[in-house]
């Protein structure tokens, strides 16, 4: 039974954590793509920016969460989301909108977003320094140990407080987005614009508003993902570096332009990464009598070493694109 607990801790929980982060990030990337038709490379840095805003706010108001009994960072997250949304709209106005107004090809916008990446990274480093910092300023990170009600399960299932928040907030964000896109007039207008921008405008939809709304949603989600990841580990200025590639892989795997595809893609990539670096020898130990001895000799039976974790999303990407070129869900339109 301890092997099962080991599996839950190292695969189910760890995979859900990366899956949730990738899912929230990929939803933003995919929404931006479906409305503006370009791959937004600065998305990872918008996440870092969101987490950085939380760090600043939590440093300024370390007691903000006391009244609610939750970490200050969580209470200040909505404010950071608003600031990140503002940044996203501002970046669009300053850098992308002039390019769009000139009717440039999407690739120019992609290169532009690379420039924005470098700029944001520089700015964040300038103010936050280069070292890692905890978002838990005055609070203690709770760790929950749940004993399984089985014979022989001595090791508990371990889940941390920020991981719980992550799961809850991911669920709320995905459901909220679904309601927004399927029920509200604005959400339907977004779907319409992703389908046919000219017709959307000729049908009275203000495309500038839709673009702004898209940035607000993408910025807010980016702040959520960045903050929850930083809460779980630590805040680092180069956070986005390790996030950007899996997030793009997730968005493409799910079918670009399809928000629920992005969620599915995020979990596919998250679990694939976790399973690839998981040490199977522990799980196989109870069956060692029936297995050839060379299999378990080394004691480390992972598909790839942890240091190669970052290649896994690309492997998944290639496999899925060969099997289903438009992604798991058919992409392009919300």
């Amino acid at each position, binding site marked *: 039974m301890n092997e099962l607990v080991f599996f839950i801790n190292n695969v189910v929980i760890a995979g859900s954590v990366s899956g949730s982060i990738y899912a929230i990030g990929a939803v933003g990337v995919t929404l931006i793509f479906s409305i503006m038709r370009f791959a937004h490379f600065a998305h990872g840095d918008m996440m870092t920016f969101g987490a950085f805003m939380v760090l600043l706010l939590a440093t300024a108001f370390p007691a903000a969460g006391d009244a609610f009994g939750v970490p200050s960072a969580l209470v200040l997250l909505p404010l950071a989301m608003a600031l990140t949304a503002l940044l996203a709209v501002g970046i669009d106005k300053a850098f992308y909108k002039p390019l769009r107004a000139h009717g440039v090809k999407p690739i120019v916008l992609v290169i532009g977003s690379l420039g924005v990446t470098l700029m944001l990274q520089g700015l964040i480093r300038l103010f936050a320094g280069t070292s890692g910092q905890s978002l838990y300023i005055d609070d203690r990170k709770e760790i929950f140990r749940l004993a399984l009600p089985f014979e022989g399960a001595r090791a508990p299932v371990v889940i941390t407080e920020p991981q719980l928040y992550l799961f809850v907030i991911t669920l709320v964000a995905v459901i*909220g987005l679904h309601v927004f896109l399927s*029920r509200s*007039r604005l959400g339907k207008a977004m779907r*319409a614009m992703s389908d*046919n921008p000219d017709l959307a*405008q000729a049908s009275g939809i203000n495309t500038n508003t839709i673009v702004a709304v898209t940035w607000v949603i993408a910025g807010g989600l980016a702040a959520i993902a960045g903050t929850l990841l930083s809460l779980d580990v630590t805040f680092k200025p180069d956070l986005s570096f390790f996030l950007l590639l899996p997030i793009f892989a997730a968005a493409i795997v799910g079918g670009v332009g399809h928000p629920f595809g992005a969620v599915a893609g995020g979990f596919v990539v998250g679990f694939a990464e976790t399973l690839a670096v998981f040490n199977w020898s522990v799980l196989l130990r109870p069956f060692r009598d029936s297995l050839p001895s060379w299999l378990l000799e080394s004691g480390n039976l992972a598909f790839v070493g942890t240091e190669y974790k970052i290649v896994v999303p690309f492997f998944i990407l290639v496999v899925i694109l060969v099997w289903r070129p438009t992604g798991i869900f058919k992409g392009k*339109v919300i």
Partner: protein
Amino acid sequence: MAAIIDVQHVHKAFGGLKVINDCSIQVEQGSITGLIGPNGAGKSTLFNIIAGALPLDSGRVLLDGEEITNRPANELFHKGLLRTFQIAHEFSQMTALENLMMVPPAQAGETLFNAWFKPSLVGKEEAEVRRRALEVIDFIGLHHVRNELAGNLSGGQKKLLELGRTMMTDARVVLLDEIAAGVNRTLLGDLVTNIERLNREMGYTFLVIEHDMDMIARLCEPVIVLAQGSVMVEGSIEEIQNNPQVIEAYFGAAS
């Protein structure tokens, strides 16, 4: 009768190519005005300028006396100026009925607050829009395909859907860009009937670009002939058909 659309001395060039050259046209309130001319005469460009899809170089466009020069298409929509596209546009991933239901402006669901916290209000308005969309889809004869994805409809059905779109809101002027192209004769008859009914019963003014002379003859009065970016002649279809200048523009000097 007053001119509902008044285009005054419009110029438009693409690079060195002057497409619209000091063009002035008036569309009378309540008329079905035809706009014809040989290929390259600037009909579609003029249309796009009126509809807010293209910026003009100089000149003015008035809608019922109000200046609408270079206003974006979505603003014109809310002022009652609607257009269809030469190549039928549709929201391909929505059903025919949903396409129509996209159109009506100012539904309660527009605010996030209502969408999330007052679903019953949104539901009520949506039911009303749905009722109207069902009426329209009956009117344009697409009831049997209402739940098909619009992307899967035939070219002619998409054109009908375009016309239906203009009926979902209280339009004042509708610009029809080659609505008959690619539509079979039977459907065409329906289209013409529907346009006439909308004009008569709902008071729509139409400006129609068309290559199909039968349709122009049946529908339009007056007809404006555009050549080389400006107005050549304007008059009834009989006058146009017997005008030597027009014959020359269409068939060349040889005739």
